[in-house]
């Protein structure tokens, strides 16, 4: 049933199976030769082409990715440099502003100092003038008052301590009132 399906095995007992039939050697040789030519011409080059194309596609992709990567890192480098520049610029500006500010502050302080000195000295001189005026007027008044007081003391009895002090008080009250 097995190998007999469709084709009949010959009934007669053939030669030993290890004795080759020349026809089969030739058929095997020719058949393989045909297959070899066919595959060498039609299959192998096409498979190799697919292989090569694929390798190129993958390597091309890798190369493109590499270029993109390099560009990206260059851009990043540039932005970083720009950022650093901007930072430096800002710091410089800040530094300048600070210096300028301190100069202005110094000037203002000096001005204020000057003004204060001026005001102080003006006040001082006016106080001095007033004091001088007061001193002068006091000098005159003290003289007159002393003279008056002395005359009053002389006019009163001087033996009574209480009276003496009353006189002085009264005098002072008069002075106070006359003012």
């Amino acid at each position, binding site marked *: *049933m*097995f*190998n007999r*399906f*469709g*084709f*009949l*095995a*010959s*009934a*007669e*007992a*053939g030669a*030993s*199976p*290890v*004795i*080759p*039939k*020349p*026809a*089969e*050697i*030739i*058929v*095997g*040789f*020719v*058949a*393989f*030769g*045909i*297959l*070899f030519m*066919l*595959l*060498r011409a*039609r*299959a*192998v080059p*096409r*498979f190799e*082409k*697919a*292989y090569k*194309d*694929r390798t190129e*596609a993958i390597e091309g992709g890798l190369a493109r990715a590499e270029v993109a990567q390099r560009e990206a890192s260059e851009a990043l480098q540039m932005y970083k440099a720009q950022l650093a520049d901007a930072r430096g610029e800002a710091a410089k500006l800040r530094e300048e502003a600070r210096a300028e500010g301190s100069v202005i502050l110094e000037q203002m302080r000096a001005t204020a100092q000057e003004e204060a000195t001026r005001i102080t000295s003006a006040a001082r001189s006016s106080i001095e003038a007033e004091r001088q005026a007061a001193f002068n007027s006091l000098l005159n008044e003290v003289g007159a008052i002393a003279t008056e007081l002395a005359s009053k003391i002389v006019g009163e009895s001087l033996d009574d301590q209480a009276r003496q002090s009353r006189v002085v008080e009264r005098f002072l009250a008069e002075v106070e009132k006359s003012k």
Partner: protein
Amino acid sequence: MHTLLSQANSGFVPPSSADFDFAPIFGNSILFTKPVLLVFFSVILAGSFFTLSARKAAIVPSKLQFAGESIYTFIRNELGRDVIGPEFMRFVPFLFSLFVFILTNNIFGVVPLLQFPTMSHIGFPIGITIFSYVTYHYVAIKKHGLKKYVTDICFMPGIPKPVYLILTPVELLTYLVTRPLTLSMRLFANMFAGHLLLLVFTLGGEYLLTSGLILKFLSLFSFSFAIGLSFFELGIQALQAYIFTLLTALYIAGALADEH
């Protein structure tokens, strides 16, 4: 088992090498026997499969291309590049065809309806062994020159002189006789024995089926065995195709090597 069956019923004829002989299907021409037709069928089958598979050569392969390319890549890299080395690309078409041709013809052994491994006829293995034989000698002579090649085989360098008495005949025998003989014999014998084994269980099962009731049950085991062995055979068929190709690649690699 045969003797047992023969005793039980002398009607059973165990399979023999005669089951491997086929009468011409029509006419008297030897070109129209089943094995010969199967061999040519294998050329058409394998040739058209791989031609179609490789036709588009797309970067992203279709299923068909992937199937063909997997086999091609396996032979190209495992047997070509890894065994032969830098010059492997010259031999890839040969190794690839060799593997495909043997594999297809072997697998015919378990394909329903075909069911005959053509390599179980020793003529076919011999036919392709001629290719291997000529190739590895030709490659070596072309690479080293005939004189150096023969000298290297006969007088392997770095060996004490008396050893040549034994070594030289052995080496000559290996290169000229043993290698092609074992190459074709191994393939033939494996396929022959495998097919015979399947015949025993299948024909045995068939015979048991026509016997008494209890023996009818036994035929179930016989057929199960035949089916199990078919899968086992499939493994052997692929393995033998691989071994034949591997050894050819090794012989070529040896021919290309500087020292023999």
